[in-house]
């Protein structure tokens, strides 16, 4: 089972889990790590030296972690990153102490690189500005050199120790900055795509709506002409119905594109989730072979949300689910309150999403459907994020897909 996540909502144990589940695999692993090692001049000899130095360093790991975070927390802007207070800092100190020990323990192989890459990604994800990384890393460097200075090593051993510590810390820095660079490139690319979509949306809105308006009025006129003539021609109504359905689909695509480009702010009010789920299922025209079930906690679950936007999100999820299931399957929509969050799950028994595609599902224009625009989940993510919520996908090709939306509970109740 693999997961993708998006949004910017509250923190829970589950979320901590999944932080490590996406976009954490280093790109072109082998060559990048080897290239960085070669550049830093890091060899197997360094690995052996670090292991030998570990007993001298390990007892000081917690003390270094304390100093490290005291330095960060002393700085107002850096402190702002740690939004969860003391518990978070305590946890991070433990992580840093472990990190220091593993720095010396090694082995400095591909697995080591992967774990370091994940740590780099955490820095990026919590939006710790990159400039703090260098100062913080220098603090670690000074502390480690200080420990070596105090250790009962020969002068040559101490010099080699200093060199090795510098090389491993250079390696660490290179990996972390690479994570930042990767994130920056991704964001630039995403912004470029969004700007392009905005331009396309404006032009499509006018250029496509006009011919759609002609088709729509022509279908209407044809029905009226037939009705007035009292003509009943086999198959004509069936075809007019098909044109109507295709028209509705085309309008939806144009509207999706516009919604995406405009990113309208939510107009919130108290909303009964049962109604939203019911409406989305009705609008989606679920195939008869799919059993659709709606489960909402009694007496009711409400959120403070934009009903139109939320219905659009659920409609997109239901349509994706139906597409994944084809003619038959089970579709379950459920809503429940969990502490200060309200969760909405849309679960299907469809084909599932291949693990390689999961990190991409929220990206605009990504689609595997022959008729999709690749905007549905992007719009869903934008809307959910604008509501202060998160959206996650858990999927396996054996069991199907569950999309979970978590929204802040309606405090006005």
């Amino acid at each position, binding site marked *: 089972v693999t997961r993708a996540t998006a949004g910017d909502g509250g923190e829970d144990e589950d979320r901590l889990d999944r932080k490590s589940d996406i976009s954490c695999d280093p790109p072109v692993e082998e060559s990048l790590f080897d290239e960085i090692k070669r550049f830093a001049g890091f060899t197997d000899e360094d690995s052996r030296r670090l292991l030998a130095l570990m007993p001298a360093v390990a007892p000081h790991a917690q003390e270094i972690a304390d100093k490290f975070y005291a330095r960060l927390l002393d700085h107002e802007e850096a402190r702002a990153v740690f939004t969860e207070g003391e518990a978070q800092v305590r946890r991070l100190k433990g992580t840093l102490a472990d990190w220091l020990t593993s720095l010396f323990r090694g082995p400095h192989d591909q697995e080591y690189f992967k774990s370091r890459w994940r740590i780099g990604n955490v820095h990026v994800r919590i939006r710790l500005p990159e400039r703090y990384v260098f100062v913080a890393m220098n603090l670690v460097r000074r502390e480690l050199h200080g420990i070596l200075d105090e250790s009962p090593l020969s002068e040559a051993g101490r010099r080699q120790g200093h060199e090795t510590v510098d090389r491993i810390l250079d390696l660490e820095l290179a990996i972390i900055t690479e994570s930042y660079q990767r994130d920056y490139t991704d964001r630039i690319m995403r912004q470029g795509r969004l700007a392009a979509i905005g331009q396309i949306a404006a032009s499509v809105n006018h250029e496509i*709506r006009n011919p759609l308006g002609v088709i729509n009025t022509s279908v*209407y*006129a044809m029905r009226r002409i037939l009705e007035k003539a009292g003509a009943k021609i086999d198959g004509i109504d069936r075809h007019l119905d098909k044109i109507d359905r295709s028209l509705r689909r085309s309008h939806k695509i144009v509207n999706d594109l516009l919604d995406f480009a405009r990113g309208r702010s939510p107009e919130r009010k108290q909303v009964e989730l049962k109604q939203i789920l019911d409406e989305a299922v009705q609008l989606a025209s679920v195939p008869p072979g799919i059993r659709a079930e709606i489960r909402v906690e009694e007496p009711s679950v409400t959120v403070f949300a934009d009903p139109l936007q939320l219905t659009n999100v659920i409609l997109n999820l239901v349509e994706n689910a139906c597409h994944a299931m084809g003619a038959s399957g089970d579709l379950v929509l459920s809503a429940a309150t969990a502490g200060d969050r309200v969760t909405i799950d849309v679960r299907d028994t469809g084909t599932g999403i291949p693990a390689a595609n999961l990190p991409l599902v929220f990206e605009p224009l990504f689609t595997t459907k022959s008729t999709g625009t690749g905007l549905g989940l992007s719009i869903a993510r934008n809307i959910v994020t604008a509501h202060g919520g998160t959206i996650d996908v858990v999927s396996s090709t054996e069991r199907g897909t569950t999309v979970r939306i978590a929204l802040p509970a309606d405090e006005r109740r």
Partner: protein
Amino acid sequence: MTAAAGIPTRTLRVLVADDNADFAENIAEILGIEGHSVTVAYDGEEAVRRASAESFDLVLLDVKMPRKDGIQALLEIRSKSPATTIVMLTAYASRVDRVIQAGALGVLRKPVDLTELLRFVQRAVSGSGSHGPA
């Protein structure tokens, strides 16, 4: 989709102005089927000229038209014939407030919901065209 308006109680003189000729002619044909007498104009200037030359019970104006945009046409038609009921057509939600302020009875968003259009026609037929948003 089926006709919702039914037989009108009286025949209206309607002007439809839209630079999308097929669309304008389709609207004209649909209103013609409902028993109304319809004139088509393909830009704002032509719409104003037609409205000056003869009187209409209902004018449907596209907002975005060549030679003279719909809002300008609306202002000019209203200044000459204040009693004419004018309904605007637009693909742009952002322009709705502007056209209502300029004196339109209502606004139909494109794609036009024909049931909604025929409702406006009914209001014009029954003479209850008070000004306000659709």
